[in-house]
């Protein structure tokens, strides 16, 4: 998608790709709702929704094209599985809290999974939402923080230091789980740990340690991966690296089945 569109934000999408895949295909029920607060990773969300059959290949092909329903950041009221057009950072957690409060008032058993970035935590509204979620014990919100340590033009700890993030979240009243955001086994353990807190008073925040531009050597952990599109040579290199990684992990041809 990014290669065809000649677009940036590749690193942001690769950072949360496994998180979105896991949430959608291994954790969420049909009733649950996903809010990608870091809307600049919309391509990762679109890809997951395509895999889920919500978006068609034609829609995916229209990414970035004039007349598309899939702009660089999520659209307004266009896709049933995208409840809000996020992109301006710091909104998604409050929106999730509102929907979660609504579900509680309607006695509906459903969860709201909100994926924020870490740079996004600079926004004051995030902490307003965190106060509210903790105070109202909205255990039907699961907050996943894509902790790749990079924001738009610098490292989070150099721009506005977040650490100790886990202590901050615990002080707000969250049950904090730290995982490797690229490792499904680690995410599975978080899911199981979270399930144990379904009826508990503390909402859950998951710090998912990740790499911006994960899996592609020239992009990984670089500020450039936030902005720059791929050249044809870089695209070929990226495909090659992803393919080799898949084969190493699975011991065979990724196209064999």
């Amino acid at each position: 998608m990014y290669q065809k569109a000649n677009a940036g934000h590749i690193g942001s999408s690769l950072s949360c790709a496994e998180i979105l895949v896991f949430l959608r295909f291994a954790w969420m029920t049909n009733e649950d709702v996903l809010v990608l607060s870091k809307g600049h990773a919309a391509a990762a969300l679109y890809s997951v929704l395509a895999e889920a059959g919500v978006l068609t290949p034609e829609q995916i092909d229209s990414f970035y094209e004039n007349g598309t329903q899939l702009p660089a950041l999520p659209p307004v009221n266009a896709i049933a599985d995208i409840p809000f057009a996020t992109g301006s950072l710091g909104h998604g957690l409050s929106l999730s809290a509102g929907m979660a409060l609504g579900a509680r008032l309607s006695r509906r058993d459903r969860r709201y999974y909100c994926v924020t970035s870490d740079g996004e935590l600079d926004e004051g509204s995030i902490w307003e939402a965190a106060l509210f979620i903790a105070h109202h014990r909205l255990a039907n919100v699961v907050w996943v923080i894509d902790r790749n340590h990079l924001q738009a033009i610098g490292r989070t700890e150099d721009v506005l230091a977040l650490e100790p993030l886990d202590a901050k979240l615990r002080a707000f009243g969250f049950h904090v789980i730290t995982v490797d955001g690229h490792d499904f086994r680690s995410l599975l353990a978080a899911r199981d740990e979270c399930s144990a807190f379904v009826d508990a008073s503390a909402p859950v925040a998951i710090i998912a340690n990740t790499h911006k531009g994960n899996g592609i050597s020239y992009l990984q952990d670089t500020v450039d991966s936030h902005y720059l599109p791929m050249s044809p040579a870089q695209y070929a290199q990226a495909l090659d690296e992803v393919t080799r990684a898949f084969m190493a992990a699975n011991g065979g041809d990724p196209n064999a089945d």
Partner: protein
Amino acid sequence: MRTEFAQAMIALFETRDDLVFITGDLGYLAFERLAAVYGERFVNAGVAEQNAVSLAAGLARAGHLPWVYSTAAFTAFRPYEQIRNNACLHRLPVKLVGNGGGYGFGIMGATHHALEDVGVMRGLPNMRVYVPLVAADVAAVVSMMAKDPLPNYLRLNAPAAVPTALPAFAPWRKLKPGRGAVVVGVGPVVQALYELSAPALLEELEIWSVGTFPLESIPAELAASITTKPHLITIEEHYAACGLGEALSYSLLTSGVVPRALTCLSAAGYPSGRYGSQRWHQEESGLAGPRLKERLEQILNG
């Protein structure tokens, strides 16, 4: 109008089960009974207006009808992006309520005044603004807002006590006839026209009240008055920029209705750098008292 608003919200609660009332930690000695009636559907979201508006959008997305209450300045300005993105762009029925529009909070000073609220709200897509005039308007407006599927902003203020029989709340209302000039006003500041202790002056004014933005089509009777009478005057407790005067001018000119002369009376801000009651600020801006009387006499005497 805060008391009337609370009463209207309690009455509304008896008619539907999807209401959620969110306050930004305001409503002392006004919302206690409302809170008791609403129970878990009354939420004090704290002094956190950005979160409150997004919460409301989320609640609306989940099928509820959320109302967000705060001081007008805090309802309209702090969470503006949340209003734009999460309520207006998504066409969700988030009901925003701002108490003390204009100089309503008087001596509290400039940070607590809202002289731009109607302007910034009417600039948003899908947004409808309601400005009641008298206490009896509030229940009607609350009922209209509850039926409106789009976002709304309600500007509350101390109600006017206009000494004439009024038609029910409507986008346009004629308050009285007059031969000398047409006055179009919005909100309770219109009452100042009746308090000039100048019966002969008042007699000359044909007065209309605007209740909603965007402006509805100009009534034929008003259009006829504007084109035949020598002067059109607008009055609003709001800065001139993006206010009633500008909105009406646009509507008139795009409708081919051209006034022979136009004067827009609006809030001047803080010309002396001093502070006082709502009335004091109105008078300093020439929206009430001797300066208003002098200005109207100048206009009527040509």
